[in-house]
């Protein structure tokens, strides 16, 4: 069932490719705005690059949260999911992972290209990709809690950012921190291990919280 729901969400994403591309372009545009606002000084940009890419990834993944449950909610599929004899936690885990494959994965793939714009060295690019690979699924999982809680509310989009962004902070700190540590020539293992730990904890706890939130929102 878990793979089934992923398959379904991917099929839907393929039918609506534009949604995937909007998130990706948003990411690219935000990252490209920074040199225009702080000036093209390469040394400055290089030190800012990890932070910029990570903040942009945060915003991009948050903006796409609205789509996670809203269409299932408005056409009644979500009700059927709640009534499914399958475990709801597994179902929502599948949905969160599908969401990551559709919105997080493209960011990970795109990040090195943007890193080159900022003149990041090759090994820093590698660390950037690994940190995004570990960190963006956490964003999807935590974000799904916020998306589930704000289902069907007025101004849900802005509200979800208020709820979710403070919770994203640890991921941001260690994600960007790993790249900075690498560029400063210190070990970044601890950063990546912690990101991995966050991923494991959120894989265990978030589905439960998402399922509870959905039940509350649909009551």
């Amino acid at each position, binding site marked *: 069932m878990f793979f089934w729901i992923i398959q379904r969400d991917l099929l839907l994403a393929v039918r609506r490719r534009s949604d995937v591309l909007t998130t990706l372009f948003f990411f690219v545009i935000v990252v490209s705005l920074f040199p225009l606002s702080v000036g093209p000084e390469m040394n400055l940009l290089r030190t800012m690059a990890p932070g910029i890419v990570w903040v942009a990834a945060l915003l991009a993944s948050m903006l796409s949260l609205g789509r996670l449950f809203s269409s299932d909610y408005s056409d009644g599929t979500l009700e059927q999911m709640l009534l499914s004899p399958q475990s709801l936690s597994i179902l929502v885990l599948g949905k969160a992972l599908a969401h990551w494959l559709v919105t997080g994965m493209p960011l990970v793939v795109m990040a090195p290209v943007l890193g080159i714009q900022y003149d990041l060295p090759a090994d820093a690019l590698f660390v950037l990709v690994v940190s995004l690979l570990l960190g963006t699924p956490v964003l999807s999982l935590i974000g799904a809690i916020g998306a589930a*809680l704000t289902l069907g509310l007025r101004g*849900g989009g802005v509200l979800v950012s208020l709820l979710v962004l403070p919770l994203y*902070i640890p991921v941001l700190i260690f994600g960007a*921190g790993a790249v900075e540590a690498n560029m400063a020539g210190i070990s970044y293992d601890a950063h990546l291990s912690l990101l991995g730990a966050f991923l494991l904890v959120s894989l265990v706890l978030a589905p439960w919280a998402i399922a*509870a939130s959905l039940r509350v929102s649909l009551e």
Partner: protein
Amino acid sequence: MAINWYKYASPASFYTLAGKMVPFFTILAIGLLTIGLYIGFFVAPTDFQQGEAYRIIFIHVPAAWMSMFLYVVMACWAGIGLAFNTRLSSMMATAIAPTGAMFTFLALWTGSLWGKPMWGTWWVWDARLTSELILLFLYIGFMSLQAAIDDPRRADKAGAIIALVGVINIPIIYFSVQWWNTLHQGASVSVNQAPTMASVMLTGMMVMVLASWMYSIAVILKRVRIIILERESHTAWVAELRKKGAL
């Protein structure tokens, strides 16, 4: 004892009980506040390093403590409300949030006031100040979520989930901010570390902490009474109160 518990867990009887408790805690709060401020501003000696400016800790430290403590208390009440479906505990959580946010804001404000003479800037990205700022965001998230939901029962439960997620995250956030701060050796001066504290200062601070407690209890009980009235406005006992002219 158990019977009493159930009796006061109903909003109607708690309304009366809280009504009796509010004046008591208000008087205590005012009394302690007067004593605490008196010790803080007139009895405690001038600090030889920081001069008079240090006196703001008599407000800053209690505010910072209360802000974190109240979030945990709020999450506990919200969690109880979610697990046992008790309306009163959810109302308590809702009533705590504004007071907690107020203390967080106060801690930030006084922290920044203290920062000006100490560091020469209004704001330093110090680990504690930053954590406090994030805590303020968490309070704001909780309150805006509850405000956006019309159905009070759904608001209670949704708020409870976000408060619990927040309370799990607070240690992680605090730890990561601390890590981030040591890595970026920005400001290494910690706000709450007064080098050696004279016992008078300590007494003053403790009195202020107690005063904040009493204030919080009084205000929260007062707010819970209002929330109870709002939610129970269609019930017989509120109509009874209205008839008696007690409202």
